[in-house]
């Protein structure tokens, strides 16, 4: 059974946002990493790139397939998780701990359109 964490915001496309002040840490959910299988590469944007809610910002790839990443929120990338460049499999070990990008949120009201843990858990069944 895939893990879902309270207090995060979830998108239907299986990304999460963990909000800390003005910043959001974006990654893929435990359910998503489980569906994908072993992650062998993460395609990430660069610091200072803009991301837009609902739009693609990178990809996570298994041996067989590339799966696009969609940003749940809009903002500016202030940090990428460089550990994933050498160890993409960290996402399989703990998808919530190993976020992919840190974004300065440009519109916090977008968070209202995302799901809470309970609602997200329901769509993973």
């Amino acid at each position, binding site marked *: 059974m895939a893990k879902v964490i309270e207090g995060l915001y979830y998108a239907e496309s299986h990304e999460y946002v963990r909000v800390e002040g003005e910043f959001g840490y974006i990654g893929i959910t435990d359910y998503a990493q489980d569906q994908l*299988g*072993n992650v*062998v*590469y993460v*395609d990430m944007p660069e610091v200072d790139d803009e991301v837009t809610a609902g739009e693609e910002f*990178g*990809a996570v*790839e*298994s*041996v*067989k397939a*590339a799966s696009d990443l969609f940003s749940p929120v809009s903002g500016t990338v202030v940090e990428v998780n460089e550990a994933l*460049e050498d160890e*993409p499999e960290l996402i399989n070990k703990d998808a919530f701990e190993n976020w992919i990008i840190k974004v300065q949120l440009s519109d916090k009201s977008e968070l209202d359109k995302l799901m809470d843990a309970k609602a997200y858990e329901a769509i993973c069944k």
Partner: protein
Amino acid sequence: MSDKRTCLYERHIRQGAKMVSFGGFEMPIQYTDIADEHVAVRTACGVFDVSHMGEVLVTGREAERFVQHIFTNDVSGAPVGKIFYGMMLHPNGGTIDDLLVYKEGDERFFLVINAANIDKDFAWISKQVKAFDAVAENQSDYYGQLAVQGPKAEEVVERVLGLACQELAFYTFKKMEVEGETIIVSRTGYTGEDGFEIYASHGLIQQMWDKLMESGEAKPCGLGCRDTLRFEVGLPLYGDELTDELSPLEAGLGIFVKLDKEEFVGKEAIAKQKAEGLTRKIVGIELEGRAIPRHGYEVVADDKVIGEVTTGYNSISTGKSVCMALVDIEHAKLGTPVQVRIHKKLQPGVVIKKRFYDKNYKK
């Protein structure tokens, strides 16, 4: 039309395989993990359900002459028990399919063709055979097929399945009697490792699969790792490196096209291509980074698109991101710098031999 199922379908489901559509069949892509299955074949033993493959039996007084007519390799004068790899071509040199030809007798040849091409191939074969004193029979629905592959395959086939295969040389086969049925066992495969392919009735294939599973000595492997394994050793997959529009020369498979043969469909086109020189070719490309090149991605040089990726992976055995790609001939030389467009970014790489891992066949 819905996909067909092999005689092992229920077993795949019971074993929790992830199923996908391939070549008109619902096939297992993986049981647990592609990389684990891949490594099992490289280091020990894996078993694949390849019952989706097609089989055509050609018999008759002119069976050999007919095979010579539709096949690029040269089977003349071969001993019974020998297997040949080659292609069937369109008159313009494009590839109808790549296949194995088993010589069962002077007037009896067994053709093994790709699942996705069974209907196309059999239509072509049926049309061509009319001009010969020979008959072709599509036996695809009768046969199930297992591929037991890996350095321990010989031991597993001998001991677990009780089939004497030790004496078989690479690319030879023999027929054996099992429970009153004749089965075919060949030392062939599609992984770059030693191994065997076994053709038998559905019932016997199911029994053999069960024996292998009970023994725990052959890991069930899906088509996912079948593709990563064949790719690493530079073997083509029809649909990627060979197509109706691509010739074997362009795919770098010229050694399986015997232009010194008297005649075969496509010979003139291939001879012309050889004389005039190729305009494009399948090459290997190694990328500097870990980004993964995939089928259909653009290959770029000097700001121009000069080709596209046919198959690509982050190689499980070497960890490098590599691909096979069809590129314009000016950029096909070893050592040529090229780029592959992956998720909008251009990733630098270089043209290398399209063998990313050395084969480990038993000769």
